[in-house]
């Protein structure tokens, strides 16, 4: 075999042929030759992608419609910033206050409710701040602050972070800069790992927590508060404002997310893996009606 490599010309030709073949045979080329309208840029959050729901839904959508969905998973803040610049075609986010502002500025059309899951406050089983069982999440945070117990915040303008900030507002306490309050700037999974490592508290979405539960060593301490609902909307980016946006594609995806069939898939997603569903389908409902 080594004899083949003795001739430098042969090697050069081999490498060149190899790469040409690779490039030619790849679907990279194939994807590029499809017309523009086939690509949809979906901006969503890391926690949504990490839940694995999209890995199930998107192939179905692509097969049905022939569109190619580019799922860009970033924080809610960045997703909406992308929408504001017309760099995405459709958003799937869960940061209602920011979304309302987004819509008010005319960046999006057809904001539709898709599903919800909830947030939970988790912490070390020893629960040094004694928040277990509290009904009010704001109350729990207040207690943590008073005890000076370690709290990990995502600190990244994500939906989770936005929810957390809303809760702190309700407590009237400003945690920023305090020694026990640490902002990681990272995704949900990593923030949970850090909280677990340091035996601290954090606010997490149930889906990510369930996915990582067995390795974490953190317990659910506070749940069920209506304020902890994590509500997902799908928003099509306004093509009147941004002509380059794939309006048809965005609409097709949004329609798909609220369709009966999809909603049915959402309802059962996660049951076989975690014993309970990760999301609750809500298309068509009113926001005020949500909650346990």
């Amino acid at each position, binding site marked *: 075999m080594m004899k083949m490599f003795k001739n*430098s010309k042969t090697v050069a030709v081999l490498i060149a042929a190899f790469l040409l073949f690779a490039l030619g045979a790849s679907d*990279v080329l194939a994807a590029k030759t499809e017309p523009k309208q086939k690509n949809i840029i979906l901006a969503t959050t890391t926690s949504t992608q990490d839940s694995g729901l999209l890995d199930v839904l998107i192939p179905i959508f692509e097969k049905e419609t022939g569109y190619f969905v580019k799922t*860009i998973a970033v924080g809610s803040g960045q997703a909406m910033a992308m929408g504001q610049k017309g760099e995405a075609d459709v958003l799937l986010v869960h940061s209602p206050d920011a979304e309302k502002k987004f819509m008010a500025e005319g960046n999006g059309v057809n904001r539709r409710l898709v599903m919800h899951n909830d947030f939970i406050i988790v912490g070390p089983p020893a629960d040094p701040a004694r928040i277990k069982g509290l009904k009010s999440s704001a109350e729990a945070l207040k207690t943590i602050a008073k005890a000076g117990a370690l709290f990990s915040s995502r600190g990244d303008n994500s939906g989770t972070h936005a929810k957390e900030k809303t809760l702190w507002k309700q407590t009237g306490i400003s945690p920023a800069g305090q020694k026990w309050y640490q902002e990681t700037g*990272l*995704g949900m999974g*990593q923030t949970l790992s850090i909280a677990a490592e340091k035996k601290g508290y954090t606010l997490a979405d149930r889906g990510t927590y369930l996915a990582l539960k067995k390795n974490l060593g953190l317990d659910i301490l506070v749940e069920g508060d209506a304020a902890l609902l994590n509500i997902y909307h799908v928003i099509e980016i306004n093509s009147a404002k941004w002509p380059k946006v794939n309006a048809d594609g965005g609409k097709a995806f949004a329609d798909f997310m609220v369709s009966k069939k999809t909603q049915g898939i959402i309802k059962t997603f996660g049951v076989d893996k975690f014993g309970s569903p990760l999301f609750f389908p809500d298309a068509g409902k009113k926001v005020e009606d949500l909650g346990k």
Partner: protein
Amino acid sequence: MELIVQGIVKAFELLISFDPEVLGITWLSLKISGTATFISLFFGVSIGTTVALTTFPGKRLVISLINTGMGLPPVVVGLFVTIMIWRSGPLGFLEILYTPYAMIIAQAIIATPIVMGISLASIQNLPPNLRLQILSLGASRMQMVWVLIKESKLPLLAAVMAGFGGVISEVGASIMVGGNIKGYSRVLTTATVMETGKGNFDIAIALGIILLILAFLVNLLLTHIQQRQQLR
């Protein structure tokens, strides 16, 4: 510690079972970084050699720029490329954001100064009269340059390996311009970051190990070419 062991075991499992997703990711890593390295080889060696062999005003400044380019932060490159190719950017009409093409471009931009800088230094390191000697033997400019390049085979291949090493392990720019889209622009590095973010440390470590193996095999081939004696 046991996490690492878990990772090694997982790596084994993924490879032995020819897990299609992992294979796809590995293949894509090789294709993208390989193409980017090829591009950087072409531009890097040609420009580096030209700068080394010609005199012109401001040559030292140009060399400083090239040497600075060798240390370009990849994530800054990613940011600039993103701004260039997104819809509102000057090159937005190309529509290559969130494609492997964008990743190839970003990686090529990262690798080219590395190859250029090392090529420049290795050509400058040849005996100064060698160029004249080859010309006096009747070589045309192109023939002379080709002989000098072959004579610098050792450091030039080191340059290629440095360029390849830099981009196969790159993650910041790749995520930014590629989007880490499953089955399309997800490569070993970006997948590792994602799995770590999800908390799947064993998969992350496995991907890391696979990346190391890939890099090792490529460098094994390049080293063989580099160290081979031309004696026929």
